[in-house]
């Protein structure tokens, strides 16, 4: 029984990692209607910036907040400068540009900071918390809390602020939005900026566990995609839940289904997502977009 609980706890911790980046992916999809393949790499880059600031002597939280500010500006600038020229191109051309960003970020990070992995500090206690025989990592708990906090912010932002509504409208129907006076271009830039901020949070939460290196987010992003797909790309809450489900299911499959074992556990997790998609083609909590013919 202990092992089951421990595996679930560990799955939730890992799922929290997936969820944090999945939130950024969902954010940018909501705000711009684009899947950003560079999201993970931008998060990695932001984490390196935070690392450099801490190394330059700044206290953790100062560096953390400065990084968020830098990430926001960076996101906005990238949208205005890099994405803008292909704004009206087919969606796959925009995806190509994000792929270009992915490889550039990865390569440039390795070039600036080398590929040697670096320890990254955690703002939470290093001592694990024991309840009976089950161990909770203090950082894992803290990370899940932060992810929940980000989720709450996104929810409140899109639901209740005029800006959030304007952003959704701009992404969903740019032409009509323009007619009602929404500055669509800036809404998209804002979406990139906010997604970059959430990505940076994810990076700084993930790096203490995985240690910082240019490929920090490569694997995480794959799982984050799976999480967002499972939960639904239009639902931030769904994406977070998707992250937790993927984390837990993968652990349990690896542990208890002996003929699969650890060698195929990821494959099984993927197969399960596809099965879920067959029942609910837009993810567990996604909404189907109704199109007029």
């Amino acid at each position, binding site marked *: 029984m202990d092992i089951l609980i421990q595996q679930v706890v560990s799955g939730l911790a*890992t799922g929290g990692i997936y969820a944090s980046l999945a939130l950024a992916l969902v954010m940018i999809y909501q705000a711009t209607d684009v899947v950003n393949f560079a999201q993970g790499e931008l998060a990695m880059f932001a984490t390196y910036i935070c690392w450099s600031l801490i190394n330059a002597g700044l206290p953790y939280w100062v560096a953390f907040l400065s990084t968020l500010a830098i990430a926001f500006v960076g996101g906005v600038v990238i949208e205005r400068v890099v994405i803008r020229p292909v704004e009206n191109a087919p969606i796959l051309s925009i995806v190509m540009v994000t792929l270009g960003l992915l490889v550039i970020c990865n390569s440039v990070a*390795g070039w600036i900071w080398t590929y040697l992995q670096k320890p990254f500090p955690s703002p939470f206690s290093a001592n694990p918390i024991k309840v009976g025989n089950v161990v909770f990592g203090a950082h894992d708990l803290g990370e899940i809390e932060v992810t929940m906090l980000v989720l709450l912010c996104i929810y409140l932002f899109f639901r209740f602020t005029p800006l959030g509504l304007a952003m959704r409208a701009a992404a969903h129907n740019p032409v009509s939005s323009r007619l009602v006076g929404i500055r669509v271009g800036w809404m998209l830039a804002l979406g990139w900026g906010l997604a970059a901020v959430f990505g940076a949070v994810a990076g700084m939460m993930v790096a203490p566990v995985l*240690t910082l290196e240019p490929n920090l987010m490569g694997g995480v992003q794959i799982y984050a995609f799976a999480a967002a797909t499972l939960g639904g790309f239009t639902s931030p809450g769904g994406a977070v839940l998707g992250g937790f489900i993927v984390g837990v299911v993968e652990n349990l499959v690896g542990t208890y289904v002996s003929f699969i074992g650890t060698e195929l556990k990821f494959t099984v997790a993927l197969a399960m997502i596809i099965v879920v998609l067959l029942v609910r083609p837009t993810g567990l909590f996604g909404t189907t977009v109704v199109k007029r013919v």
Partner: protein
Amino acid sequence: MRRSLQLLALALALGMAAVATVPAGAQTVVGVTPTEIKIGNTNPYSGPASAYGTIGKTIAAYFKKVNDEGGINGRKITFITYDDAYTPPKTVEMVRKLVEQDQVAALFQTLGTPTNTAIHKYVNQQKVPHLFVATGATKWDDPKNFPWTMGFQPNYQTEGRVYAAYILKNIPDAKIGILYQNDDYGKDYVKGMEDGLGAAASKLIVLKQSHEVTDPTIDSQIINLKNSGANVFFNVTIPKFAVQAIRKAHDIGWKPTHFLNNVSSSYASVLKPAGVEASRGLITALYTKVVTDPQWKNDKGFQDWVAFMKKYYPEGSLEDDSNFFGYSAAILMAHVIKQCGSDLSRENIMRQAENLKGVELPFLLPGIKVDTSPTDHAPIQQERLAKFNGEYWELFGELFDAFRKN
């Protein structure tokens, strides 16, 4: 009359010899001119394995140093290195470019097991020296079938056997749990361990857990290993996962005798991030000096390397063992070229590479030397066990020599 006949015969013989040797010689000496020798290499400079690319960059920097100092026997080394992104098809393309288009004299330190496997047959058909490949697989030491290929570092299977021998001797009630990366590298280590344990293997190994290189975490596997009741942990992971494994085992209160594979013996990228407390007591097998280890601070070879790095590769990290590795490999290659003298034909390069006796390299632990012969294509075969004492790897026990089969 007889004298003149003799002279004539001598002149004829000389002439024939000249005719016979000149074109033949000109034909076989590929990639060599009186002023240069071309050496080819592939490394991952892009893609997920680009962390290894620093080895290629160090080698290029070292050959620049050699050239700055006048080259070898009057020849400059032209080092041509291409990016293969660690994908076999690209390696095939790049190596063909090196051999057929650039016409290199030899290939050196091509990196990776699947990538080298892809070109193994080709380079042997083409009879191109394929020297000191940067991978720990066992198959490179097979001079009968692949006479043109030669390994470099001790292979993973040997290292697995080193740990097995230690366990059999010192841990009588061993219950072994293994975590390994699900590829040739991980499986080679596991095979070495199983072979070393012999008939007892199936009884002693209580659980094997694998992980993919793309997995973000390995927490789940560590929990299962702890739960299996294992008191010995054989950790076959690359640095990224080694850090997590050490830390997670510590966090959940699992305290096995922890054998960490040599691949992750770096202080800067593994032990320090994992935490010195959690790392205390780890056992590994070393053949090299770990660069951040204080016991080598005044070592001549280490200091030379630091001076070299500062001058020729300042952007490279002084904490990265790969840079010491590449530097030492390049020194060995330069040694082979020097030993070739004026005959830089591919045959002679191979002959000299097969004739290395007791060569010392700066990164090798004291007592470990490079030895090769026509039947032995594994240059470095000795290792020593070491335990992390909270500050550095403390060597213990005697030199383990794979060639002597203990």
